């Protein structure tokens, strides 16, 4: 019985220690991200949503601490998953009002990544849980899965390059669930319907939407007028 208690205590201590580790890691990551107060970047956005036919578009991305984030298409129309992109990396961990849970190490591709789950302490928070896959050596988040109350679950995949020292990715891929899209013919005024209905498997696959943003030419900490975010 004593042995048993001791074992429980041990487990508890270990997990506490590991949690501490995870919190440390997040702090390190955060510290890196905090190097950037604001940035402006140009990029290319590719939208891959089954029911959207859109060309690759050139965009400008603006960010300002703590969570101002804006994608602008020069004089064009942009389609973004709702809420998804506004939840930016640094805004994910900007506040400290969350609990961290260490979920061990996972191999993603060829890399061994530390998995950390963040649970917001606030009841009102839209985010239910965020799972981060962190490259411990570089203190970079390589993958994040966020589940929200309002906007479903989305995944962000990050690739780093020249700006890895400040935690800014070269490429971000957002994956998110989309609802089925259908407009009545009365509204679109179409008669012909020879488009074959998609098979169940296709429909399932198509329910995932992807938005891919490749960043170029970061201008970091040069200041951005607040008006841009309106």
């Amino acid at each position: 019985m004593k042995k048993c208690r001791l074992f429980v205590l041990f487990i508890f201590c270990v997990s506490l220690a590991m949690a501490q580790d995870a919190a440390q890691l997040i702090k390190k990551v955060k510290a890196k991200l905090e190097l950037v107060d604001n940035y402006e970047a140009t990029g290319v956005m590719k939208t891959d949503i089954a029911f959207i036919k859109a060309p690759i578009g050139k965009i400008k991305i603006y960010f300002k601490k703590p969570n101002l984030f804006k994608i602008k298409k020069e004089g064009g129309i942009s389609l973004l998953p709702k809420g998804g992109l506004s939840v930016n990396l640094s805004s994910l961990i900007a506040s400290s009002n969350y609990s961290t849970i260490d979920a061990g190490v996972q191999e993603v591709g060829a890399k061994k990544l530390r998995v950390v789950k963040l649970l917001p302490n606030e009841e009102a928070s839209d985010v239910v849980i965020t799972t981060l896959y962190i490259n411990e050596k570089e203190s970079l988040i390589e993958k994040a899965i966020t589940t929200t109350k309002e906007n479903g679950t989305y995944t962000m995949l990050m690739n780093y390059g020249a700006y890895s020292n400040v935690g800014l990715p070269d490429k971000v891929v957002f994956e998110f669930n989309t609802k089925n899209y259908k407009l009545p013919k009365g509204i679109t005024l179409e008669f012909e319907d020879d488009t074959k209905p998609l098979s169940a498997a296709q429909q399932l696959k198509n329910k995932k939407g992807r938005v891919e943003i490749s960043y170029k030419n970061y201008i970091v900490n040069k200041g951005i007028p607040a008006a841009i975010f309106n």
Partner: protein
Amino acid sequence: MFSLVQVELYKIFKRPRTYIAFGAVAALIGIIQFGLKIDGKSYLDFMLNDLSSSLEIDGKILNGYLVCYVMLQLLLVHVPLLIALIAADMISGEANMGTLRLLLIKPYSRTTLLLAKFIAAIIYTLMLLVWLAILALFGSMLLFGTDDMFLLKTSYVVLLKESDVFWRYIGAFGFAALAMTTVAALGFFLSVFAENSIGPIVATMSVIVFFTILSTLNIPIFNLIKPYLFTTHMIGWKEFFDIKVNASNEAIIGSIQNPEKIIKASLVLVAHTIGFFVATLLVFRKKDILS
């Protein structure tokens, strides 16, 4: 032949009736533009209702290109009625006035006369479309500016780059010209049979309304005959605004999703036009002029 066409056009454009169509088009376009200018946001919210729950759509969606598309969508169904007003009157109206017999004792063959009249009807049709294009496309471009074109289709949405839109309108208006010529040919054909203009005008409108309803109804038994109705093909201009995507679902600039549909629809319409005209010719050449 040239002078015959000239005379026919002179007659068309000296009639007050001709300007009803131009006036109606201008009024309709004006009203829609006014409405969208004043309260375009509500219209957009309504259209985007479904979509905006999962997507954030940013940019000037309600620009001239979209406004023109919305108007063509509404108007091209009704323009045939305005074309019928003139085309279905080309022969019957003259029969009614009694001038047909005067035309037919002039030193031209009936074929020549009919051809001249048909060409005049086509020119009228084209002028109406040019008028429509000036007001709906250029007018909207002026009023609403241009931008990317965001189109809602029944089961997907299409985003066309601003630079990739104008040529599509040229194609669309070209196609509309074919479709409206078919309507003119139908009206022209029906006008051979009557000695008053109301009959053929109403008949042409009825045929078009009837066929359009059949084309719109999504009832399996009617789906069998749909491909044979020319009205089904009349909305082929919309195909110009559908774009191809590559394997990674990325729109290919300057492409059309179903060019073969446009070609097929054009052929069907041209065949109908020729068919109607030849039928008109066959009937008219043998017709005893009793009016």
